[in-house]
């Protein structure tokens, strides 16, 4: 039996030069092993990741210089100890992938094949049981498929959590033809890469899900709307569509059943608002991507005024599993109201940043501290921002909150498409609100007055507060503006845009007041309100801060101690992140 090396070739690992590692493997190519350049394997922070089969050996931070040693030792059935995953606290080493704490708590349904197959190979996907769902679906009656999705309780993974089955039913019952299928792959949240990894790692699962949906609702034409900033996703999807057509899994007479369906890729030009369904459809039509009032659903009048089924990438990826395993089995996972699993991109100040898939109802604590491995440098946890830029910040008292659509909403955040940004005590919540408001202000389409004008004013006030120009009157204005934008805006983007502001105001009002009254930023982020100092008691005189300072504002005193010269300091916080003894105070 041949040994199989699975090397992660997704964006994160490519950033760590996994391409060079792959080239090295090809250079040393021998008969006894195979090498695959796969989609995202999850633990992006420790890339490039390499798995060895059989044996499920898990290597991390692999460099091209390690390849020779890996090959040599694997042939002798030995391990390369230094490349194994090591817990930074207990110093324990893990050999097998499923033992690594990061993977242990995860339930992989959608990402089942991600990281195990070559995304460009349709045969790999079929070998892993791919397209079996479609084959089964084609033997069923369309109404039974719709019924199965309804029964499964699958909720739209794009953010709103609208029951997918109800959309399917509406389009199925729609009288007009033609009907269209759209897959929303316009993932624009900063710090989110779930849909991207899925489209890059397993493009066929999306195509399969869409084809099943098309058969169920009676459509012959589908679109995938992908942003052009995802070139690998576009390429892999194009290759996937091409291969599927060749194999008779797309196009005319799919599986010999006489059913006809084809998919086109539409590349988005990167406007965040085009992730909103009505704006997305305008964009496909070739018009300016601006949302419209949605009193008439897309299932009645969508693309070109025809009934349209629009779902997120991840929603479609759930479909083959549901069809194959039945709604009953699907409902066993997750919570009663939010069944199934959810993919999150866990980023920020967390040790094991990466792509994870967990059952709905997993608590934030499990996600951040068990899968994520806790906060970097053991700093205290402050908040987690879920749901992308228009999500809210959840403070530490809700760490035991089970993550599902409704419970997140109850604490003032949203599920969104699944971004999760972890923050520690070095993150200023006013600055976080300012940052996300700036993003949303720039991405607002400018059609309706509350979102266009309101966000600018919110941003101006927040900027003022972070620069020490705030007044208590500003807090009243912010609250008023936030509630106004949320109630009066036209589309979902506007209505959820004040979430970062309102949730930080709700949970971290003290910090706002600190900024305004005491002119002090507790996190040491807002430059005007911060002053860095070296705590002589804690300082070990190691000189790390001295080296890290980009403007030479740290001087060595005669007794070997270090001192920050305030006039030269630009308050970048580099010394603080360099110090391993928490000796820099602010």
């Amino acid at each position, binding site marked *: 039996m041949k040994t199989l090396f699975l090397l992660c070739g997704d964006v994160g690992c490519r950033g760590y030069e996994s391409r060079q590692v792959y080239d090295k493997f090809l250079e040393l190519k021998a008969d006894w092993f195979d090498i695959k350049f796969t989609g995202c394997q999850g633990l992006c922070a420790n890339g490039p990741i390499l798995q060895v089969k059989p044996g499920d050996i898990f290597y991390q931070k692999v460099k091209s210089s390690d390849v020779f040693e890996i090959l040599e030792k694997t042939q002798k059935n030995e391990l390369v100890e230094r490349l194994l995953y090591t817990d930074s606290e207990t110093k324990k080493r893990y050999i097998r992938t499923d033992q690594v704490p990061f993977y242990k708590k995860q339930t992989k349904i959608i990402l089942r094949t991600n990281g195990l197959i070559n995304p460009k190979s349709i045969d790999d996907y079929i070998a892993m049981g791919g397209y079996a769902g479609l084959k089964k679906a084609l033997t069923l009656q369309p109404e039974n498929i719709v019924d199965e999705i309804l029964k499964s309780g699958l909720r739209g993974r794009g953010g709103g959590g609208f029951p997918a089955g109800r959309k399917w039913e509406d389009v199925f019952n729609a009288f007009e033809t033609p009907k269209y299928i759209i897959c929303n792959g316009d993932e624009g949240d900063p710090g989110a890469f779930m849909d991207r990894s899925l489209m890059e790692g397993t493009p066929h699962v999306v195509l399969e899900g869409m084809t099943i949906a098309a058969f169920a609702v009676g459509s012959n034409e589908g679109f995938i709307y992908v942003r052009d900033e995802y070139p690998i996703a576009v390429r892999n999807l194009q290759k996937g569509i091409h291969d599927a057509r060749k194999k008779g899994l797309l196009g005319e007479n799919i599986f010999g059943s006489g059913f006809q369906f084809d998919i086109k890729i539409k590349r988005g030009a990167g406007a965040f608002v085009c992730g909103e369904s009505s704006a997305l459809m305008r964009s496909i039509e070739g018009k300016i991507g601006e949302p419209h009032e949605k009193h008439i659903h897309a299932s009645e009048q969508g693309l070109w005024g025809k009934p349209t089924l629009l779902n997120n990438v991840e929603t479609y990826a759930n479909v083959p599993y549901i069809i194959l395993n039945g709604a009953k089995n699907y409902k066993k996972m997750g919570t009663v109201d939010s069944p199934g699993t959810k993919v999150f991109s866990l980023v920020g100040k967390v040790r094991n940043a990466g792509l994870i898939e967990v059952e709905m109802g997993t608590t934030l604590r499990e996600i951040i501290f068990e899968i994520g491995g806790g906060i970097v440098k053991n700093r205290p946890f402050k908040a987690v921002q879920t749901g992308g830029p228009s999500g809210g910040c959840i403070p530490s008292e809700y760490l035991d909150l089970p993550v599902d659509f409704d419970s997140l909403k109850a604490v003032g955040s949203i599920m969104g498409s699944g971004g999760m940004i972890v923050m520690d005590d070095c993150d200023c919540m006013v600055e976080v609100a300012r940052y996300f408001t700036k993003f949303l202000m*720039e991405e607002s389409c400018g059609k309706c007055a509350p979102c266009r004008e309101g966000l600018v004013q919110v941003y101006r006030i927040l900027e003022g507060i972070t620069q020490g120009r705030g007044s208590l009157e500003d807090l009243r204005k912010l609250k008023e503006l936030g509630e106004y934008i949320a109630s009066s805006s036209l589309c979902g983007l506007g209505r959820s845009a004040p979430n970062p502001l309102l949730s930080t105001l709700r949970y971290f009002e003290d910090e706002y007041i600190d900024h305004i009254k005491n002119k002090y930023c507790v996190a040491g982020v807002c430059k005007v309100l911060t002053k860095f100092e070296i705590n002589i008691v804690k300082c070990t005189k190691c000189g790390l801060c001295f080296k890290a300072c980009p403007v030479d504002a740290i001087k060595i005193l005669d007794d070997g101690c270090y001192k920050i010269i305030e006039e030269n300091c630009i308050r970048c916080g580099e010394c603080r992140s360099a110090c391993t003894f928490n000796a820099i105070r602010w």
Partner: protein
Amino acid sequence: MVEIFINDKKFKVAKNTKLLDTCKKNNIYIPTLCYHPDFPGFAGCRLCVVEVRKKNESKLVAACEYPIRSIERFYTESEMVKKSRRMTAKLLIARAPEAKEILEEIINEKIEPEFDTLNVQNKRCVLCGLCYRLCHKQGTAAIYTAGRGADKVVQTPYKDANEDCIGCGSCVAICPTGAIRMIDSNGKRALWYHQFELLKCPICGEQHITNQMLLYEMQKTGLSETELSICPRCRREKMGQEMLRGICHEKIVTVK
């Protein structure tokens, strides 16, 4: 037919009627800015918001686009509605301080400016979108919005003279705040980076129509050049005379 309540008064309306149309019909004033009956479906200004009250929750909807489908209670002058309208007006004034009077007129209230003025060039434009929607509706499509968010402006492509502009001035006429500049002088019309030559009315000699406009209208209506180059006032006069002549002629015929 659906029964609804507007400000606790019962009304019966056909299903899918827009709420604004119902209100207008029944003389209930709702302020609008971006709404125009000929090109609906925009709902951008949010001045026409109305409260929909359900058992224990209220939400705001834009009356111009809200279809009436079931029994609902609407409030057009509640505190929530007024607060929202006031805020919209305040924010729009921060963009367009010179549009203060017209906004006060629309929402029937004095507005105290609360926010700092934005640094935009046009101090009158509130981005209601009437001008470019009209331009598209009439088929010329010379102007559209450029940029997004707060940087959005109504513009011709690349801020340059656009071949598609016929210099009709419809955008100027429809603008509620007078934000678009058009200058007619010395037989020339300046509009949207263009200098249009104005043609003379063959009867009175008034310069009233641009050459491009004339060609466009000939193409659209199929009328002759001489007919279209007559200015509106002379045309009315001419038509009146013709009608009069026709009536007289008829009389003469009947008398006989």
